């Protein structure tokens, strides 16, 4: 898209979102947290709820057949409860290794910094966990659940950090959100990201999703959007950014969102040497047809899907209709924002009636392909095995 047009659209979406924010304020409940029932009202009836406490839910792959994920299909994943925050009282503080500490209201941000809208992937680190054998501990996300690719409106994190003046020894930026726990002793959810990712032009402080204010459960009124990376990096209900000289030390950095430095045997416990879960490896899913869809013999089947990767580019997507013995290239759309998923299509003419399994396998620009079954890890992160959809060709 042309730069000036992009800027104009971003500004328009941002302005619309800020007007709409006032309407949401009028509906705010007086309690300190939003009930699960209220959150579910904003979601599709077909959304599958994997747990109530904390609330987690997602739609299956065939409900994801959209270039831009509609807000009512975006996955829900909280570590704690969803807070009710007064947008007028809310402040964002920037502190730590900066030349001067800053504090902004939500309404200061679009006035002081360039606003933009970009489409970007968010995916929970545990997305796909239920496919691991043996089962790994945690939310049993569907093989293709726990991700989405909406449009985000906000300002660049880099611009805000530059305004505060980042000191030369800055290494990480920690985001802290205002989500309360069930018990007063609950540790705050704090995650930090390295400076290079914080200063990347696609990393945002966002207040809008799909041109509207963030829904409560998606971080209203402010959140980080670190597209392509595990969802927990994108702190919701953001109120403090702290610039640090090392990764933040806390339970959500040291005990969760880690994978073994070297692969371990399935079922082994976490080894002492670990790395932080950051960018998602290349992944794809078939969004149409739906599982067990029926087709008449003699016709052709259009396979459609989405592919994405946390860093780099999606290079190609292949489809197999013979359990991975042979692969045919799908037509891949290459346009779009850097961290948006890409759509692919493939026409397939079955040779005979019966049950047909469709498999999708994406490759990234560094030559990595999706494996049939990814490395097992104790917390069940980064499932990116081939997506499999079976359909029936009637005689």
């Amino acid at each position, binding site marked *: 898209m042309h730069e000036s047009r992009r800027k104009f659209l971003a500004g328009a979406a941002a302005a619309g979102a800020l007007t709409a924010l006032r309407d949401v304020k009028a509906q705010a409940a007086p309690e300190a947290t939003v009930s699960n029932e209220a959150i579910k009202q904003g979601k599709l009836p077909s959304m599958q709820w994997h747990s*109530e*406490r904390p609330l987690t839910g997602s739609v299956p792959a065939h409900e994801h057949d959209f270039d831009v994920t509609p807000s009512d299909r975006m996955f829900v994943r909280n570590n704690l409860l969803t807070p009710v925050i007064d947008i007028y009282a809310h402040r964002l503080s920037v502190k730590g290794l900066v030349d001067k500490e800053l504090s902004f209201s939500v309404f200061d941000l679009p006035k002081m910094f360039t606003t933009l809208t970009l489409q970007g992937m968010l995916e929970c680190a545990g997305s796909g966990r239920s496919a691991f054998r043996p*089962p790994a*501990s945690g939310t049993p996300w569907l093989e293709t659940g726990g991700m989405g690719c909406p449009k985000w409106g906000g300002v660049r994190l880099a611009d805000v950090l530059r305004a505060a003046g980042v000191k030369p020894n800055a290494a990480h930026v920690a985001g802290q959100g205002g989500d309360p*726990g069930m*018990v007063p002793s609950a540790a705050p959810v704090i995650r930090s990201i390295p400076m290079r990712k914080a200063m990347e032009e696609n990393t945002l402080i966002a207040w809008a999703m799909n041109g509207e204010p963030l829904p409560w459960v998606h971080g209203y009124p402010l959140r980080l959007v670190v597209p392509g990376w595990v969802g927990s990096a994108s702190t919701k209900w953001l109120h403090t950014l702290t610039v640090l000289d090392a990764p933040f030390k806390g*339970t959500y950095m040291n005990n969760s969102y880690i994978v073994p430095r070297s692969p371990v045997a399935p*079922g082994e416990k976490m080894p002492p040497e670990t790395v932080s879960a950051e960018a998602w490896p290349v992944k794809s899913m078939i969004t149409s047809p739906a599982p067990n869809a029926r087709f008449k013999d003699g016709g052709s089947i259009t396979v459609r899907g989405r592919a994405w990767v946390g860093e780099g580019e999606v290079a190609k997507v292949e489809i197999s209709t013979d359990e991975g013995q042979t692969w045919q290239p799908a037509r891949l759309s290459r346009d779009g924002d850097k961290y948006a998923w890409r759509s692919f299509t493939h026409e397939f003419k079955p040779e005979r009636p019966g049950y047909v399994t469709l498999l999708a396998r994406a490759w990234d620009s560094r030559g990595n392909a999706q494996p049939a079954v990814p490395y097992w890890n104790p917390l069940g992160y980064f499932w990116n095995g081939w997506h499999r959809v079976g359909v029936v060709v009637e005689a």
Partner: protein
Amino acid sequence: MLLLKLRELLGVVLLAFSLEVFCQEERLISGPGSTLTENKCKICHELQHIRRAPLSRGEWADNLRNMKERGTPMSDAEMAVILDYLSTYYNRDKPAPAPSADTLAAGGDDPVQKLLHANGCAGCHAVSQRVVGPSFGEVAQKYAGDALAAEKLATKIRDGGQGNWGQVPMPPNPGLSEADLRRLVGWVLSQK
């Protein structure tokens, strides 16, 4: 009028049904330490996380350390009981033994303490400090001077509720006998 009544009745039936489902789901295999494990774990999450993915003893130990760091209020002694329980009944490397009585259920011979632990009250309430729900002291103070206090509190314990102390719902306890309910109410109201 009749329609309205039917609707109300249907609502009550549906509520009872969903609460039944809720209660059934929130149990672990009965055995030494099962009550304590249930009470501590379900403060923050459903018990399906435990039932779905049995782990090795080493993984359970890591898991419990993680939960403690996340803020679970449990002592080291309690953690040891829970680790033994989980790695006996939810161990991926060996089948679970047959269910047995929870011989470690806290409370000793004190009838009130027995009720508090057997019904899971102690998972969310303590005498003087707020855990998930209000402390028993806070509850007693709320009802101080209220002539209908015993009636109101009995209803609350039996039917559950939400909204007075926050949005975390208190589950109902329909199985409590009238005598046990009275005993609990009397004890709670005396904790001012």
